[in-house]
C-alpha cells in the first residue's frame, strides 16, 4: 500500500524527460533515476518477505527466536539444514510433498485432452447452439467452486470416495475445465483456418485434423494451461481440506497449516515448511515463465 503514492509521483519526472526527446521512440529505454529508485524500492519490498523466510528456514531455533533474520550475517556459522529434516521427517512434510505430486499430476494432464476436443469443436465445427454453449462455459469461469463442495461431499460420501486421491483429481478436472476450454479455444481461433480447410478438402476427418494438425499446433496453449492448472492444484488448500482433510493423504498446503501451530518451537520450522510448499511452484514458474505469460495474455489481450 505504501508504494502507491510513490509510483504516481515518479511518473511525472520521467514523463518530462520523455517529452524532451526530439525523435519518437516507441520503447524509450530511458528511465530517469527516480524511476529506477522507485522500481528498486518496490522490488526490494517485494523480495523482503520471501528472503526473510528462506533465511530463517536455515537458522537455529535460538537464533530465530532472539534476533531478526537480517542480523544473520553476524552469525553465518550457525546456519543449519536441521529445520528441513525436522519438517520432512517429523512433521510429515515429506509424505505431503509426495501427496502433492500425486494429486497435481493427474489433475493437470487428464483434463487437457478433454478440453482440447471441446475447444476444437467450438472453434472449427459449425453447429446449432455453439455460441450459447460456449458462452455458458465462459460464464462458468466466475462461478465460485465453493458451490461444489457440499453437494460433492455427499456424493463422494455415498461412494466412499472422501479422503481419496480420485476425489480431488475429479474435482480439479471439473473446476479447471472452463479455463482450459477458454484458453485453448482462444488460441485455436488464431490458427490459420486455410490449413484446416485444405486438410478437409484432402479428405481428412475431423478426428484426423484434430489429432494430426490442431493438437500439435496448439502445444504452446496446452503448455500454458498445464502450468496454470499445475500451480492451481499444487497451491490449492480449500479443495484438499474439504475432500481429503488432514492425515495420510494431505498435500503440502495442508501439512504446513499444522506447522504453524508449533509456535513454541519458533519460526525456523514454520518457515522451512513454508518454503517447502513454495519451492516447486517457484521452480516451475521460473523455468516456464514464458508459457505462463503467454497463457495469461492469450485470454485477455488481442493479437
Amino acid at each position: 500500500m505504501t508504494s502507491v503514492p510513490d509510483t504516481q509521483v515518479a511518473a511525472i519526472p520521467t514523463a518530462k524527460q520523455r517529452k524532451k526527446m526530439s525523435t519518437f521512440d516507441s520503447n524509450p529505454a530511458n528511465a530517469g533515476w527516480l524511476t529506477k529508485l522507485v522500481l528498486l524500492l518496490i522490488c526490494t519490498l517485494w523480495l523482503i518477505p520471501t528472503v526473510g523466510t528462506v533465511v530463517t528456514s536455515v537458522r537455529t531455533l535460538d537464533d530465530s527466536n532472539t534476533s531478526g533474520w537480517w542480523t544473520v550475517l553476524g552469525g553465518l556459522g550457525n546456519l543449519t539444514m536441521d529445520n528441513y529434516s525436522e519438517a520432512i521427517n517429523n512433521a510429515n512434510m515429506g509424505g505431503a510433498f509426495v501427496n502433492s505430486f500425486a494429486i497435481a499430476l493427474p489433475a493437470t494432464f487428464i483434463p487437457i485432452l478433454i478440453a482440447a476436443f471441446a475447444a476444437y469443436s467450438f472453434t472449427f465445427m459449425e453447429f446449432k447452439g455453439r455460441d450459447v454453449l460456449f458462452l455458458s462455459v465462459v460464464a462458468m469461469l466466475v462461478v465460485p467452486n465453493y458451490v461444489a463442495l457440499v453437494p460433492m461431499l455427499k456424493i463422494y460420501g455415498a461412494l466412499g470416495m472422501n479422503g481419496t486421491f480420485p476425489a480431488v483429481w475429479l474435482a480439479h478436472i471439473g473446476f479447471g475445465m472452463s479455463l482450459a476450454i477458454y484458453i485453448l479455444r482462444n488460441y485455436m481461433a488464431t490458427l490459420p483456418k486455410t490449413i484446416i480447410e485444405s486438410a478437409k478438402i484432402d479428405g481428412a476427418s475431423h478426428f484426423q485434423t484434430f489429432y494430426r494438425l490442431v493438437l500439435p499446433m496448439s502445444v504452446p496453449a496446452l503448455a500454458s494451461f498445464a502450468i496454470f492448472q499445475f500451480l492451481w492444484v499444487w497451491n490449492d488448500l480449500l479443495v484438499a481440506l474439504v475432500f481429503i482433510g488432514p492425515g495420510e493423504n494431505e498435500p503440502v498446503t495442508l501439512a504446513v497449516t499444522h506447522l504453524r501451530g508449533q509456535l513454541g518451537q519458533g519460526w525456523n520450522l514454520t518457515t522451512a515448511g513454508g518454503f517447502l510448499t513454495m519451492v516447486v511452484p517457484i521452480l516451475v514458474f521460473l523455468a516456464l515463465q514464458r508459457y505462463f505469460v503467454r497463457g495469461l495474455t492469450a485470454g485477455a489481450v488481442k493479437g
Partner: protein
Amino acid sequence: VWDAQSRIPGDLVPGVLVPTARRPGKEGVTDMKLLSALLTVVAGIGAALLLYWLLNKLAELMPSKWEERIKPFFYILPAYLAIALYLIYPALQTIVASFQDATSDTFIGLENYTNLLSNHGFQQTLFNTLLWILIVPAATVVLGLGVAVLSDRLKSGGEKLTKTIIFMPMAISAVGAATVWRFVYAAQPEGQPQIGILNAVVTKLGGSPVAWLQQSDFHLNSIMLMIVLLWAQVGFAMVLLSAAIKGVPADTLEAARIDGAAERQIFFQVVVPQIKGTIITVFITVTIAVMKIFDIVYVMTNGNFNTNVLGNEFYNQLNTNFNNGAAAAIVVMLMIAVLPVMVYQVRHFKDEEAAA
C-alpha cells in the same frame, strides 16, 4: 449426514497442535502413491482417447447428414459433463440446501438467510468482504499499471528482472504467502528483540511493537491481510497491462505528441482508452478472486479479530458448526454477488469477439 465430519479433527483450529501420526514403512507407501499417480495419468489420457475414438466411430456409423450434426456434441460431451457435474449440478443443489436445515433434512424456508443476515458477526463478515472488494481490485490495477509503465522504461534486461521479481509471488500458494507474511507481521513483547521485520522497523523508529493482525481499529488487520493478496496479485495485473501497453500502436502516441499533448495527457487520453479492455479484464478477474478469498484469511487469522470474510465463514459453518444450510446460504449469497460480474464478463467477451 456426510462422512467428512468424522475425519476433521481439532488440529485445524489455529494454535492447537495435534501431532501427526508417524507411520512405519512410509517410504513404500509413498512410492506406491507416485506410481499410482503416474499410472492414473497414463490410464486417464488413454481412457479419454479411447472414449473419443469410440464416440467418433459411433458418429461415423450414422448417416452422413447425422454424422456432421452429432459429432460436435460428441466432442463437447465429456468436457460439458465435467462442468455439469462439478459446477452446474452443485450450484442447483446448493440453492436447494440453502433452504434446508443444518443436516439438509427438512425445508426451513428462508431461515438460514434471516438468521445469518440478522447476526451481527455475519454483518461484520459481509462488511469486511465488501472492503476487500472495494480496495483490492482497484489497488491491484493501479499498482500493476504503475509498475508496468515504469518498468517499460528500463532496458530489456532490467525490465525482465523487475517483472520476474514482482510476478513471482503469483506462483506461491496463498498458504505459502500467508506463512511468509505472518512472519513479516510477527510481534514480540516490548523490550525483546523483534523478529518480524515490520515491528523491527517500528521499534527502531521509537514506536512500540504492534500485533498487526489483532488491530481491528479502522480494519487495520484486514488491510494487512489485503497487502498479502496485493503482493501476490500485482504481478498478474502488471503482466497483462504491460502486454497491452506494448500493443498500443506507436503512431497514435506519435500523433498525440505532434499535436503537443503532455505525457500525462497522452497516458490518460491515448494509452488508457486503448488498454481499457485489459484493465477491465484484470479488474474482473481480481474482483472474482477477492470475492472467493479464503486461504489467506484462514491461515493468518481464521477470521478472528474481526477479519472474517465470506469464504472463511463458509468453511467455518461447514466444518466447525456443521451447518450445511448456513454454508449453502453463504454460497448462494456469493453467487448472487457474482452474478452481475458474470453477466458483465459474458458481455465483455462478446464485445471482444465482435471487435476481433
